[in-house]
């Protein structure tokens, strides 16, 4: 009995010492995972995930503090990519963080703009130009569609407008159709 305890204790001490040494020897600095997660996130910086930007959300995912389904702009595809990267199961978008919307840009109704600069301060990517008491306007190619400029506007002159398709951005459709005999007859 005493012998058994002694043997186990001895083993524990030896192994513990080895592990302690390894923990010091193989200490990890930095976290390259955050960069990889950040690269998948859409960089709208909208904060819908509950973190103040994409990078903080990436850090939270890397630490395991946030789930992967909190990013509405990234949509299902973004979640799939995160799930692939992290080897987790796919989860559908968490409803409390919002829904996936078509890609839009903010448009300022320049007649109603009073030039208060509140939206300029709210824009995370500096895509709104203007000065105090001057009309503001959105630089459309740089707008990420985060909607952060909507709430601060005192005169509600900013609206989100979906980006239409042009000949250059048009995509070939997925060529898989459900076979429907009646439709074929009609065609």
């Amino acid at each position, binding site marked *: 009995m005493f*012998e058994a305890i002694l*043997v186990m204790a001895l*083993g524990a001490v030896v192994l513990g010492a080895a592990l302690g040494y390894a923990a010091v020897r193989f200490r990890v600095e930095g976290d*390259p995972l955050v960069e990889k997660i950040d690269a998948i996130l859409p960089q709208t910086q909208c904060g819908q995930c509950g973190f103040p930007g994409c990078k903080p959300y990436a850090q939270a995912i890397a630490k395991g503090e946030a789930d992967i389904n909190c990013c509405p702009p990234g949509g299902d595809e973004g979640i799939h990519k995160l799930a692939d990267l992290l*080897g987790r199961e796919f989860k559908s978008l968490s409803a409390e963080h919002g829904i996936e919307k078509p890609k839009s840009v903010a448009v300022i109704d320049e007649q109603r703009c009073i030039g208060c600069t509140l939206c300029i301060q709210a824009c995370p990517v500096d895509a709104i130009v203007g000065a105090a008491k001057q009309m503001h306007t959105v630089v459309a190619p740089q707008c990420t569609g985060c909607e952060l400029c909507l709430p601060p506007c005192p005169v509600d002159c900013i609206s989100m407008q979906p980006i239409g398709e042009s000949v250059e951005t048009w995509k070939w459709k997925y060529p898989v159709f459900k076979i429907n005999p009646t439709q074929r007859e009609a065609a």
Partner: protein
Amino acid sequence: MTSYLFIVLGAVLVNNVVFVRILGLCPFMGVSKKLETAVGMGAATTFVLTMACGASYVIDRWLLIPNQLEYLRTLSFIVTIAAIVQLTELVIQKTSPLLHQVLGIYLPLITTNCAVLGIPLLNVSLRHNFLESLLFGFGSAVGFTLALILFAGIRERLEAADVPIHFRGTAIAMITAGLMSLAFMGFAGLDKYK
């Protein structure tokens, strides 16, 4: 010399740890979604299993048997394996953080991989000497890796396949694993050694 070769070959193919002994199914199903992670997991398991076989032989032969403590075998083996797994985890975290993240929970779960405990215990019951123990552990781990990689390759193809909705995911994976198991049974014909 040939007997050593037989031990390795037998462990890899004839008595494949996954398909024939049906050991270690948890990581087998869990980490075989991508080829990359399958290779990583295979390498980690190979390291752990070989080390575990060597260490457990030493513990069994020089610590437990002289003190008539054979009843502590399972316990002491588990503790040794846990320590080796911890060590492996630290090394992987340092050398490949992404692999560490991807293997996730399965890496510490190597501890509870029944193959890793099963092979050292089989070593004892098969009365292998030290070298045989190491080779048997290594061969089994290579067999595990082989199964994992083959299966990951198939699963990557399955991702793109038109699988009936109700069979998608784990269901078709189980069926595939069953078919592969049947295929590996074919190697039993090689076995004159057993």
